[in-house]
Each structure stands twice: as C-alpha cells, then as structure tokens.
C-alpha cells in the first residue's frame, strides 16, 4: 500500500480494523474522539459491531463481553476516561481474555486539559486496577509506528490472553503524517477453545474472575505471573539511536522520545557524544538493556511529559551504575528540543557525581527558574 497523509487517531482506528477488530465500544473524549468517529463510520459498513457506550465504564464492560467470545475487540479513550475503565481492566486481566486499549493521553490530574501528556504511564504500566496483573504497553512515537503497534497489540493480546495497550498522546492522535496502512486481514474463522460462544454439542464453558478459595485465586495469580515472565522474555522492544559512542544517553518514550531525538541531533552537531534509548514496550520494560547502557555511559537523562513516572523504572534498571538525571514538563506542556538540548549541555558540562541527590527536587528548581514568573 502507498503512503497517505493520515491523522494519528484515524490511522490507529483503520489499523485496528485491518487487523481484524470485530467490535469497538467507546465514549467520546478529546483528544481521541476521531478514533471513535472513524469506527462509527467504518465498523457498520463492514458489518462489524460498534456501540457508543453511555460511559467508559460501560464501554470497557462491553469490551469484556466481546473479549469473552474470543473475537478481536478494542476500545479507546484518553486519560480521565481510562481512569474510569480501570475496574473493567482488572476484571479482564483476572479473566485472562484478550483486548486492545488505545489511550491517547492528555494533561492531568483531574479533568486537566486536552493537551498531549504522558501522565498515564503509571496507570497503564503499573496496572491501574486492583490486584496483581500487568498489561502489555506499547508506546509509538510517530503515526506510522502507531499503526504498526496497533496491529501488533492485537497479536500480542491474543498470544498472551492479556490486555495490550497502545499508549499514545494528544499530539500523536492529532498530528498528520505520511504513513502506510497494512492490507486488510481476513477475519479469523473459529474461536479459541476457551471462548464463550453458546455453541451446542460441547461441555459448557465459564469465564470468571472470582475464585472464592484463596488457594484457587493464588493459582490464577501464579498463572498470570508465569505468563508475564514469558512476555518479559519475548516482547521487549526499543530503539537505539547514536548510542554506539555515547557518553550521555537520553531515555524517552513516545512524543518525548521524538522531541529528545531532535535535541540529540542538535547536540551531535555541536560535537557532544549523546544518544537516545527509546523504550517502545514500556511494559515489559527493557530492564536488561538499560542496565547494560547505564554501565557504559557517564549519565542517563530521562525526558518525559510527566513528573518522572518512567524515571523510577529507569533508576531501578540502572541499579546505580551511573547517575540518572531527569527533565520533564507536566500538565500538557510539550518540551521543546531547545529545552532538552540545554539539559544535555548541562549534563555534559556538569556531570553529576552524586547518585543520592534528589533528582526531582533539582529538576523542579531548574524548571521553575526556567519558567520565570509564569
């Protein structure tokens, strides 16, 4: 297929359709609404299910219903809406049925605003809902990657009977870029051997997330944890740029990774040996790769559009092998490449020696000084 000029939200919706998504349930919320609108037009014309639910709570439970039938199903939302879905996500994880969620993140907390942000990292990567479960979380940095990861999300969700999240943000949802959509996949015939289908002539099937005996619930938990070890072993994805000879490595995902790459290129032009490590799978997190990276660079600089949610995971992975610095903007403010460049220059000229310093306190001091009287 040829490249087309595509808006992120529409591109992800169409990618899901071509990946064989048979049912979509959602609720309008900016900045993801075009995704729902695309589905509203396309799913009925293909004879597939589309319902604009009465709330995100209902939407995720409709997803839960279809997920139990083994058919490919998804929803999409943005941060406050995703908060409402976390109850359902926990049930879906506990029932071990596959689904895809696209979260087009916006500024928060609370009602926040509709500007791009990355404040849902903890909510998605750390679980969100109650109990011990993990979701696969994939973070695109371009419209093309958003398309590719949406298709991948359906495959991974099915493979691991898990929730797969495409964690985008308002800028990825709203921007237009040339990108190429995949071919339309034929819908799968047949359903998995666990699916609730009301099919005559076989023993009845049951899907539930309640196990009243603690030992039985623990058995389920063990199964989930074992399966997650497989995910960690097989599904780590990341991109490295200019890291071969780097003294400083930036670590950034999604849109922040894209901004960071611009800053890295500018710094390289000024002769600074800096590179970028961009985690694509935030969960499973590229722990071993970051550990190895931390052992060969002088400093890591984490850049995020939040208050350092991935920062904690980078520090855990680095295990103190090198200082970990942080620069972030919050509340829907997207950092400019020049701001990130200034941070690279600072780290390169004043290497931090103190591993025990308060990373966030120092960052907040610099951030507030930089904002002046705002």
């Amino acid at each position, binding site marked *: 297929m040829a490249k087309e000029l595509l808006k992120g939200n529409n591109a992800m919706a169409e990618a899901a359709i071509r990946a064989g998504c*048979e*049912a979509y*349930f959602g609720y309008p919320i900016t900045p993801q609404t075009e995704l729902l609108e695309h589905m509203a037009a396309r799913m009925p014309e293909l004879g597939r*299910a589309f*319902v604009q*639910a*009465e*709330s995100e*709570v*209902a*939407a995720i*439970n*409709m*997803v*839960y*219903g*279809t*997920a*139990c*039938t083994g*058919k490919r*199903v998804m929803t999409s939302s943005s941060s406050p809406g995703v908060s409402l879905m976390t*109850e*359902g996500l926990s*049930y879906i994880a506990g*029932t071990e049925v596959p689904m895809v969620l696209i979260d087009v993140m916006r500024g928060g907390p609370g009602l926040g605003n509709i500007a791009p942000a990355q404040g849902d990292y903890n909510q998605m990567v750390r679980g969100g809902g109650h109990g011990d479960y993990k979701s696969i979380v994939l973070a695109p940095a371009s419209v093309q990657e958003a398309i590719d990861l949406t298709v991948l999300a359906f495959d991974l969700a099915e493979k691991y009977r898990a929730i797969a999240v495409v964690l985008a943000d308002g800028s990825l949802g709203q921007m237009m870029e040339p990108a190429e959509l995949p071919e339309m996949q034929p819908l799968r015939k047949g359903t998995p051997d666990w699916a*609730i*289908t*009301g*099919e*005559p*002539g076989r023993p*009845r*099937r*049951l*899907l*539930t*997330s*309640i196990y009243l005996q603690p030992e039985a619930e623990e058995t389920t938990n063990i199964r989930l944890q074992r399966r997650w070890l497989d995910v960690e072993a097989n599904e780590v994805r990341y991109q490295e740029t200019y890291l071969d000879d780097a003294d400083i490595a930036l670590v950034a995902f999604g849109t922040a990774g894209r901004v960071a790459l611009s800053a890295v290129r500018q710094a390289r032009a000024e002769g600074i040996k800096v590179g970028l490590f961009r985690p694509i799978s935030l969960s499973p997190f590229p722990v071993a790769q970051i550990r190895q990276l931390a052992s060969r660079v002088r400093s890591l600089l984490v850049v995020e559009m939040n208050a350092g949610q991935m920062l904690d995971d980078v520090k855990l992975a680095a295990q103190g092998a090198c200082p970990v610095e942080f620069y972030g903007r919050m509340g829907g403010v997207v950092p400019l490449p020049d701001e990130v460049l200034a941070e690279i220059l600072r780290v390169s000229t004043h290497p931090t020696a103190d591993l025990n310093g308060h990373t966030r306190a120092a960052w907040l001091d610099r951030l507030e000084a930089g904002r002046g009287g705002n």
Partner: protein
Amino acid sequence: MLTTDIQNAKVVYERPEGFTDLTTHYCPGCTHGTAHRLVAETLDEMGLREHSIGVASVGCSVFSYNYFDMDFVQAAHGRAPAMATGIKRVFPDRAVFTYQGDGDLASIGMAEIMHAAGRGENITVIFINNAIYGMTGGQMAPTTLPGMKTTSSPNGRDVETQGYPLRMAEILATLDAVSYSVRRSLHDPANIRKAKKAIRTAFEAQRRGLGFSMVELLSSCPTNWGMTPLDSLAFIEQKMVPAFPLGDYKVVDAVKSMKMKEG
C-alpha cells in the same frame, strides 16, 4: 401392602436439563432457586439451552453460573447489561440473558440497565427484587420499602433522607426500545406459574429479535429480612406487592401477537 407400579409411573417433576448437578448455596426459603428453575425450564422447553449465554451479576446470584448448564460469564457489579451487549453484538443468534439483583441492577448498574434498554439491546433481563442487599448481609437497597429496617437503615428507611424505592418495571417501560417489561412475584404457586409464562414471553421476544425484555420478580430474603420462609412469602404478598404492583408495564404489539408453542 402398598405397591408401586414402576412400569407405568410417569415423571411429573424432574431436574431441568438446564441445571448442573450442584446444590445451590442459597439460604433455605430464598426464592432464587425458584427463579433459577423457571429460567432453566424455559430454556429447556424452547430448545435454547445449548444456544444460550448467561451473564451472572454480583450479589447472592454471583454463583448462578454454577447452577445453569450452559455457557456463562461473570460480570462486574452492575455491568451485566454492558457485558451482555458486548456478547450479543457479536453473537446475535444466541439467547443472551442477565440475571441481576436489585442492588446490582437498580443501584450501581442503573446506567448500564437504562442504556441497554434504551438501545433496545436484544437481550433478556431477569431482575430479582427482594428489597435488600443479600450477599453483603442485609443493607438497604434501592428497592427497600419505606420504613423497612435493614443494617444500613437500622431505624427503618427514612424517606426524608433515604428516598423512595425505585420501580424498575415501570421506569424501563417508558423507553421506546423496550419490547417487554413486566413484574411478577414468586410468593405462591399461581404467581410462580405466571412468572414462568412471563420469562417464556421475554425469551420468545428475544428469539424473534423484538428488542429488550425484562421480567422483574418479587422475591424473598428470609435470612436478611429476619423472617421464616413462610412469613417471608406473606411479606411479599402483603407488603411488597402493594409497593410494587404486579402487571404488564410494556408489551409491544409484536410481543402481544407472538404465537408460542406450549412446551
């Protein structure tokens, strides 16, 4: 000596095929067992048992999936109509039903039931109204009668601060896409037979694609009402029926004109 003629004996009462072999966990005198049986018998008679998908709710009926011999899922509290929507939309030829109590359907799940009905989802809802939260031990429900004592209205439901019971059969009947919304009671054999007929009508409406159908069943909760089973049945008749009048609140013409084969 009394002898029994086994050869010519006729089975007049047996376990429905739609039931598993398990004994229910319900308290003695609770009418959940009766309601379960009516649903199972109906699906048997309609030949739908193996083409059905049940959606269990949260409350005492959380384990209803153990007792019906058919595919089942277990919904989150109040979300059964949303989950049923997700199933029915991709398996429109299956008989999809929810089985919900009053806390589940009329309190935490009010949005889901109203909008599933408003969309005319072609599902059947069996609504057990016993005016109390059973599973958590007898708290006030949205259908608790004025003055009725519960563990969370220890001095009796005070309508000044705790409002009035919600009449779901009447409320749902106001929605255009609802094909069938009725209330029956399980307090005596005659009413149980009427309830069975209503459940059959609801599933027949679904089978014909006529849209949302709901049967509200006035039920007992001897344990949390603090009554004997018999007194509980009398309470339904004397207290609940006046507050929740039995009747057909909506039966669209297409349902009225259905010709049902007697099972």
